[in-house]
């Protein structure tokens, strides 16, 4: 498989950017959301305490789901617009 195509794009917003230190980056060889969360918590332990939803290609996914290359995975803290 083309390594370029095995990448997913991560997007972090709001207070989560204080934890991740970046708002968009790429990650390779991630098969599903549970695996992604485990890797992220290892890298950013404060995420374990954070409240957030995961959206894959702009749709909120509750629970686990398979990720495919090219997916945009967004980490969304509680909304506070309006």
């Amino acid at each position, binding site marked *: 498989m083309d390594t370029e195509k095995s990448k997913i794009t991560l*997007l972090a*917003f709001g*207070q989560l950017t204080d934890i991740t230190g970046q708002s968009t980056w790429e990650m390779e060889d991630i098969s599903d959301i549970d695996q992604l969360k485990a890797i992220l918590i290892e890298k950013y332990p404060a995420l374990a305490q954070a409240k957030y939803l995961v*959206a894959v290609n702009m749709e909120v996914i509750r629970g686990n789901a398979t990720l495919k290359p090219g997916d945009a995975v967004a980490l969304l803290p509680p*909304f506070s*617009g309006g």
Partner: protein
Amino acid sequence: MSEKKPKKVFIDGPITPEFVAKSIASHSTKKDIGAHSIFLGQVRNDLIGDKAVAAIEYTAYPEMADLKFHEIREAAFAAYPLTCLHIYHSLGTVLAGEISLFVFTSAIHRAEAIKACEFIVERIKHEIPVWGKEILEDGSAVWKVNTV
């Protein structure tokens, strides 16, 4: 009636009273409208500890927000017989006392306009990926937490 074309929602900085007036005035040619309902969200100078909020800096996940605004518009038009529907939300800095959200529904009769406006405001608060960072009077900042 459903409107399929995407509409520009985000506005850079505060929503001004003059903008609201212009929006109201543009409906005077739609003479089947009998009722307008408008919701305006204004930035409060809440005390965070002992410091007042001076402004909120809004950021969004704009592509997802556009998609969700579109879904909310479609749901509102499906649920209520609206003549018109406009939604505007600020991005960037909005000072305390300034307006950051403007929802505007119009219908033949009052009940539909009022109910639709309330429906839309609730969905925006729960479904739109926008975040506010409260800038306090001493320059420090905290992420806003919306009450339910």
